[in-house]
């Protein structure tokens, strides 16, 4: 059984890499979202010719500027979607780690007692599986939440709403950091990875 736990350790190492990628993607997403939100924020101001000051003298400006901002908004939106796509890949990889773990357990056919047994500080096989499963569900739910938030970005969004959405986006309510840390602590069982 110890051998199996070692195999799970490898999976957790891989999961940790995925989580690191996720947090890179998360900061990229936040940046993109705040850029998009600030464009949406200033579009109403840019739509008023009265606000153009000295640029009023140059007529084309009041048409070209909002147009260019809309263009960059659309560009940012498409890069947001590609970031989301990468996050989906991470959530899928975590799912695969979990389902592979389940397969592994099935093929070895440990007894129920073996599956529940802790060997010293080493966690039981069930704990290993559960940890992978929660990592997967956390990130999957968070991904779905992010997709929903991004859908709410539109030309009609109000700036207060966007600020609220942005804070939800950065909070990642589905991925409590201390729980993630706890999962890894249990697996590492005091070792430093």
């Amino acid at each position, binding site marked *: 059984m110890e051998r199996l736990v070692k195999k799970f350790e490898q999976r957790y190492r891989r999961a940790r890499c995925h989580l690191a990628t996720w947090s890179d993607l998360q900061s990229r997403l936040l940046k993109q979202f705040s850029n998009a939100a600030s464009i949406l924020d*200033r579009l109403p*101001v*840019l739509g*008023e010719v009265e*606000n*153009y*000051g*000295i*640029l009023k*003298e*140059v*007529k*084309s*400006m009041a048409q*070209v*500027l909002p147009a*260019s*901002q809309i263009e*960059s908004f659309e560009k940012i939106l498409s890069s947001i979607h590609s970031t989301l796509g990468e996050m989906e890949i991470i959530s899928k990889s975590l799912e695969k780690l979990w389902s592979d773990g389940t397969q592994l357990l099935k093929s070895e056919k440990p007894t129920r007692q073996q599956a529940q047994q802790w060997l010293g500080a080493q966690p039981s096989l069930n704990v290993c599986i559960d940890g992978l499963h929660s990592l997967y569900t956390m990130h999957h739910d968070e991904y779905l939440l992010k997709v929903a938030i991004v859908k709410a970005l539109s030309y009609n969004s109000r700036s207060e709403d966007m600020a609220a959405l942005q804070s939800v986006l950065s909070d990642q309510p589905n991925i409590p950091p201390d729980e993630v840390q706890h999962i890894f602590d249990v697996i590492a069982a005091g070792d430093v990875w």
Partner: protein
Amino acid sequence: MSGGRSVHRLWRPAAQRQVRNAWAMLHAHRSAWTTSSVALVSSATALVNASLSLRYLQSMDLGVLEEMDGIRNKVQVKLQRQQEGFLEQLLASYSGLVTALNLMLQTSKSMRTYIKGSGDGPIIEFSNEPSVAGDNGDGAGVPVFATLPLCAFEMLADEVVAMYEAELKVKWLLVSELYSIVYPEAKVNLSQEGLENFCKSEMEFRDTTEEKTSLLTGLPNLVAKSDFWNMSWSQVIELTKKRPNGELHRDTLQVYLTTLLAEVNIDKNRIEDITVMVNDETNGVVPSSPTRISKAI
């Protein structure tokens, strides 16, 4: 050209090198522009923020600090000094832009390769300066690489440079507006800040190449993003004198900052297209060329 076939044959490698180098330089100057432009936006933002704080200082609730003697005055003096610092940075970035554009302009005019000397002897030399009568430096219009003659490369470069020039005009207007925030009564004196000199030298450069610009103004609807494309520098300077009196509304400042940021006159997609076109031409077709700058461009 008088030298006959062999001169032609030898002209092409020299010209190819020249064209490749010129485009590499052009892109280098473009990234220098970008650096200055980013710096310009950030100092403009800082300047606007400082001036807005200054504006709302009198109505600001300072809480417990109200007790302190002359606190508002001190804050005011400090903010004013900060403003001046930001303005200085702003002007420095602007002159960085002018330098970058000047270099771009020079580069776009340095694509031709002229034959030096008579071209009759065993050694044929080339130069950047015309020396033989009747030699236009374009190899009598033959394709430099596979298809495009030299004037096509020049036109493409001109198109890119014209975008940046139009953008420089917009930025000039906005810089003069921001200047007037800090020194409201000195608005006309902006020209004495040394920027005018840059501007003049640039205009002179333009004047000597007047025919080239007229080629471009022939197709404004195709490429122009805004009216700045067709405006002369004197028209732009005339515009700065027209500025409405009174404080700028904060929404207007927002528009200004967005304009500085967006660089609407620089059509990135078009530049990308041009770059690809030039790269394909300079790299794809002549595989055995000595100097390859393929990826650098």
